[in-house]
């Protein structure tokens, strides 16, 4: 059910981010969503891409430190209060959100939220029970 996120370690030095995006561009990998967590010493780049397998191959061939993380993708209406609603559902179910980021759909009037939680299955059940629509890797390909 869950979405595949590509996570890349980014050294804190000039040019390290562009080295990653360049690499993906050269291999025709399109990015759907992106977020970066940065500390004084390093960054962690999190990506949802259209061709996960190709992205994994090119970045690992180039020696980047990467991993694939299963995250939850949820579709929400593009209007005030919708994200709060989804977060309330998780809160009520006692599910802690480690991080999240969002992206807009190009065609529909919807936003998509990527959630990193400890227990994906529990979060998915809670959200679906509350009427939310989850997105999968197949959906991302079509976006």
């Amino acid at each position: 059910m869950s979405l595949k996120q590509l996570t890349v370690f980014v050294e804190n030095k000039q040019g390290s981010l562009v080295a990653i995006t360049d690499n993906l561009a050269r291999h025709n990998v399109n990015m759907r969503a992106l977020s970066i967590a940065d500390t004084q010493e390093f960054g962690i780049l999190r990506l949802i891409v259209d061709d996960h397998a190709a992205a994994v191959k090119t970045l690992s061939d180039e020696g980047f430190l990467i991993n694939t993380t299963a995250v939850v993708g949820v579709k929400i209406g593009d209007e005030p209060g919708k994200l709060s609603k989804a977060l309330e559902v998780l809160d009520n179910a006692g599910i802690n959100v480690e991080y999240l980021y969002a992206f807009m759909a190009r065609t529909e009037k919807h936003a998509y939220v990527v959630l990193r939680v400890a227990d994906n299955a529990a979060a998915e059940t809670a959200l679906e029970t509350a009427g939310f629509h989850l997105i999968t890797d197949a959906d991302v390909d079509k976006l």
Partner: protein
Amino acid sequence: MEKRYYQPEIETMPVEDLKKLQSEKLVKQVKHVYENVAYYRDLMDQKGVKPEDIRGIEDLHKLPFLSKADLRDAYPYGLLGKPLKDCVRIHSTSGTTGRRVVAFYTQHDIDLWEDCCARAIVAVGGTDEDVCQVAYGYGLFTGGAGLHGGSHKVGCLTLPMSSGFTDRQIQFMDDLSATILCCTPSYAAYIGETLKEQGYKPEDIPLKAGIFGAEPWTEEMRRNIEATLGIKAYDIYGLTETSGPGVAFECCEQTGMHINEDHFLAEIIDPDTGEVLPEGSKGELVFTALDKEAFPLLRYRTRDICVLSRKPCSCGRTHIKMSKPMGRSDDMMIIRGVNVFPSQIETVLLKEGYQPNYQIVIDRVGNNDTFDVHVEMNPEQFTDTVSGITAQEKALGEAMKTMLGINPKVHLVAPKSIQRSEGKAVRIIDKRKLHD
């Protein structure tokens, strides 16, 4: 300063008499070691040397060397020269890997060591009127115990502070009018800065002298400490393997440290060939303990590079002087007064599931050492959260602290990101300028 000595007949003994005394002691000591220390007897047998071949200090070069590797191989009792029932104490220092060096002492050994420390205290002007604040660490480390014992022998009022708790150090220093401070030079500098921050001026504290050792320090640092504390700062040298601080100490001239030659016979060798070099040459310092009983190391290679000089000293002492160590002939680092070997870091990394791809960066900010270890992550160790990575860094730092006794700041970095020169990783970057 009035010329005063703790043991004048020995400290000012004419050089010829001193050499005669050393020869007599050496002959006796070699016999003692050969009869009691099987490990060294084997080394002598392998070299074809018998105790009767050693008739005086001129025959010293015939004896085999001992190194830190021998201490590891013989751990814990292999170099013991007396039955354990005659031993009264141990001290310990780090080894090159997980195994520590443990040195044993009989009461005789403690006495001669404390005499050496007492000579150092008297050389900086100490008398039974003085209040001696010992802010070296107490415990396995030799610093606290050595100066504490020396202070007792001189008859100083001894403040057994150990290191740390700087506010308390300052309170005792002020309230009890300490006149002599013994600690590492970086801690002395730190106490000086803290005094200044608290509004003290050098003249507010009756401190007159400091005995600072256990880590490298420069002339510049000496001048800084002397200015902030309003004292004269003196160097002291020693190592656990030979007893502890007091093997050599500075006098009022502050131009090198007199080696207590009646107990410790010094040589300078070429670290590559082992050949004995003439006086005045720069090379590795080697010590032979002339009358230690429990841990009687002969020709122990210190790995410290220095120069010896027998130029007459204005203080009247006849014992040979050694320069401050100018470097090491191995890869040992001294960080915050603690001996650290890269091999110890490697041992921890392998144990914790990391590859031994790392880089140690040492710097000195103010007068304190910074200690950073950069470690390349394995792909399977990489997680998608910052907290996950910082938790791994913290756990690795703790594991290193258990091994080393000091806590490095660990930085996990990407694979193959550590600078390599000619294909070989640069393991140590020491930005401190410790040698003038």
